[in-house]
């Protein structure tokens, strides 16, 4: 029982990371129908920038965090303007391929900037696990990650439900033509959506840095798994991203304890296959019904 509860705690912490990243994918896909395969590398850039400001330049953590967010957002906005948008004007199939190429490009370009070593990022509140009971504990950093995830989810949902811009994003996702007729500027909504997506990925990057070897490859597998979580939950559906992220985190944590940790990375794919077999539109995805 204790082992099980410990797994659940670790799974929720892992799920929190997947959730933030899955949301960063899904907000882009839901609003603009763009699957940005470079999202994991945006996360990596956020993490390395956080490391550069907080550790290398010894800045205050929050100043470093905000700088990392701003620069990461700018990077994705520049990519959108210079590469994604011009390509999207030709075909969305090309864009799909371009985002895959962008992932590789960002990884290599980051090596030039940050070097190819692995760094370690100090735990923000120390690495000594907090004992919940004698046998169950949680690393303070994981507690922070779960807290950050909860705050981000609340802020995102309030933004989407309560602000005019959030409503316009929903409108664009449902019917971009009608949204244009309401006077919504598609280009502006695109920029805001990319900015939110990059901000979420960079926040995840900085807060999870102490749990990983900080290097330029750190985003590749995490990005892919978060994408799987988003697709599992129903790509484009925010609640689905949370459900998918949490399920994936829990399955990985439980599976690597009870089945084998050697297959840890395979669980995501197996889970994806099972879920898409049973529900092709994802757990909370809607079937696309074209009304005439």
């Amino acid at each position, binding site marked *: 029982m204790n082992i099980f509860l410990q797994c659940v705690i670790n799974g929720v912490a892992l799920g929190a990371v997947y959730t933030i990243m899955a949301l960063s994918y899904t907000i882009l896909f839901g609003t603009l129908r763009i699957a940005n395969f470079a999202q994991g590398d945006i996360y990596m850039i956020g993490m390395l920038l956080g490391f550069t400001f907080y550790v290398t330049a010894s800045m205050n953590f929050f100043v470093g965090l905000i700088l990392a967010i701003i620069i990461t957002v700018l990077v994705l906005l520049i990519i959108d303007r210079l590469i994604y948008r011009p390509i999207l004007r030709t075909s969305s199939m090309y864009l799909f391929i371009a985002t895959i190429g962008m992932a590789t490009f960002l990884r290599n370009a980051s090596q030039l900037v940050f070097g190819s070593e692995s760094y370690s990022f100090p735990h923000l509140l120390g690495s000594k696990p907090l004992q919940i009971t004698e046998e169950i504990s949680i690393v303070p950093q994981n507690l922070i990650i779960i807290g950050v995830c909860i705050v981000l989810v609340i802020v995102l949902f309030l933004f989407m439900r309560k602000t005019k811009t959030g*409503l316009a994003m929903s409108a664009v996702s449902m*019917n971009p033509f009608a949204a244009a007729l309401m006077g919504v500027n598609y280009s502006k909504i695109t920029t805001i959506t990319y900015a939110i997506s990059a901000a979420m990925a960079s926040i995840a990057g900085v807060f999870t840095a102490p749990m990983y070897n900080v290097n330029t490859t750190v985003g590749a597998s995490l990005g892919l798994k978060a994408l799987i979580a988003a697709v599992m939950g129903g790509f484009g559906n925010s609640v689905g991203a949370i459900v998918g992220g949490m399920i994936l985190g829990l399955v990985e944590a439980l599976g690597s304890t009870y089945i084998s940790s050697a297959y840890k990375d395979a669980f995501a794919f197996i889970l994806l296959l099972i879920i898409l077999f049973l529900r092709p539109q994802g757990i909370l995805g809607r079937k696309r019904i074209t009304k005439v």
Partner: protein
Amino acid sequence: MSTILKVNDLTAHYGSINALKGVSLEVEKGEIVTVIGANGAGKSTLLKCIVGVMNKSSGTVEFEGNDITRTGSDKIVRMGIAMVPEGRQIFSELSVLENLKMGAYTRSKKEDLTPDYDLVFGIFPKLKERAHQKGGNLSGGEQQMLAVSRALMSRPKLLLIDELSMGLAPVLVESLFDALMDINRKGTTIVLVEQDANMALKFSNRAYVIETGIVAFSGKSADLLEDDRVREIYLGG
């Protein structure tokens, strides 16, 4: 009277398809002008060009004396043109109220929308009962009411309506036309594209007949109702 809309020798293409081949049209402030024509004549294309969601190949569009030929739709809506698109195009997952809120997107955040809700709910009481229902769950007629109401929320000076009567029961069409007359009396100029030429000519001041991308003829609606060519082609003899 002053001219609110002036379209001059407008052409537009979908790829290699030439949908408008030089359309000119003028609308006076306060008028109801109808555009009739067969399927594929270019009526919807004309409205899309006016509101700025479609690129024009040549020609000009002027709104209240300003050239808006190359202006983006977000700015054009702000200037005072709204459109009720063909096929309603309701935001299906948003509630009726949220759809209306989107209609008021270009208005300032501080503005109180209560008088506008009162206005549209006054015209369409059915919508008030459905205020919290998802747009996609409304009936076709209710969606059309919502599409008209949503367009009114921006307080347009010029309202473009594409196929008001499409797929609606005759009683409902009558009451929608009455609602339009009401909206027009309150000061909104209306350009109405219609399949139901009979109805449209009865309710409008002037009419343009479009055939394959050009204006075939135009004139006072009352005269066109009596015109033999119009009667033969569009009014069933």
